[in-house]
């Protein structure tokens, strides 16, 4: 989570104007770090899902969390396409192009982490005993 959201937050904050003297383009290097974090989460998340299937699948919050993650990742990819792919853009151009996307990605990450944290408090069936 720290890797994935942390790297995204750095990109988003820079596009939104933090540390203006910092060139934007090299931050593209944070994308691999995001993906490392992403796949660690997919792996460990899947294991948790196998361990406690009813806990997640019977909770609306779980689907909310997945939606939020999906949107956040999609917006990060959009930023990559719009801001980082084209060569020769100035920092000001990049910031202008990415501004809205960056703000939304922060909103979705906020939602994803919050929904995820609240999963631990909103479930109905932690485990289900099939043998009754």
């Amino acid at each position: 989570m720290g890797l994935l959201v942390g790297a995204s937050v750095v990109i988003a904050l820079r596009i939104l104007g933090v540390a203006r003297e910092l060139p934007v383009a090299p931050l593209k290097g944070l994308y691999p770090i995001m993906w490392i974090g992403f796949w660690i989460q997919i792996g460990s998340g899947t294991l948790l899902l196998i361990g406690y299937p009813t806990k997640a699948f019977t909770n609306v919050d779980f689907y909310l969390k997945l939606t939020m993650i999906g949107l956040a990742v999609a917006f990060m990819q959009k930023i990559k396409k719009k801001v980082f792919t084209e060569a020769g853009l100035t920092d000001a151009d990049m910031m202008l192009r990415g501004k809205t996307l960056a703000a939304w990605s922060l909103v979705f990450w906020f939602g994803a982490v919050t929904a995820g944290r609240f999963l631990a408090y909103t479930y109905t069936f932690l485990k289900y005993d099939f043998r009754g």
Partner: protein
Amino acid sequence: MNLTQLHLLLNHWPIIGTLITLGLFLVALVGDRDDLKQASLLLFSLIALFAIPAYMSGTGAAQAIQESPDVSMERIETHQGAALLAFISMEITGVFSLMALWRYSRTNKNPWKVGPARLNLFAVLLLSIVTSGLMGIAGNTGGDIRHSEIVAPEQPLSLVGQIGARLVAGIQSFVIDISMWIWPILEDIHFFGLILLLATVGVLNLRILGVMKRLPIGPLHRFLPWGIVGFGLNVITGFLFYLGMPGFYNLNVVFQLKIFVILVAGAQLLLFYCTGAFRNLEHVGPGQDAPTLAKVMAFAAIVLWIAVIILGRYIPFGEVT
């Protein structure tokens, strides 16, 4: 070593340290010595950091002696109240000191001549005087617990301590009793603090290690306040968890280890990234390598903060029953 011994080892530092640093700070202000000012500000920040285990070990010490027949529970609670007020005041002093240090690292011009900076410095002075007073009361009420020879017969309980004792109880009921949602909300904030801290500390240290070499290091430093805000959020929410159920944390080895690593990582953050030690790195431009020692530091910082996160996640498994 048990928590009582640890408390006795740690608790004198914030009291005497604040007084000595206040003296140093006054000398620096009167003599207008910038290096001494920075040293005092750094010391205030470090004391704020080390006041955390000083307070926490106290709750453990109270647990250990509250059954003794010759100890008054009222006096313990009064001391705890005074200690909490002193602690809070110390943390606020630390925050203002950090802000002043930050102002210093941002500009090479003398920052103390500018209006808001002077105000900041004045705030540190005022706060550290208040903190010294509160620390004194905390120390006194603490001594009263065991040293019957210094307690006059019919000596009333400290008023400040009693106010603080109410605050201790009030915070506990806020965190635990008012609503079952307070705890998860605090956890959520704790997560965001963690993300901010790891994001900024991570990207800065990865660059020092040579990842994303096209980035100049100097401007990356501008992210650091965000990391420090994250750390501040985590200290506040973390301390609220602790005040909510101190008994759960005190004897938990994983928690103790986490606090220890936070102290090491926090002290490193203060000493190497918030002082002139960092200024040598500011000139490392795009494509250039950082010095080896800086790389060692960067690697250590990443390992330490990740250790803090992992230990934090494992706290529930260290529960002592």
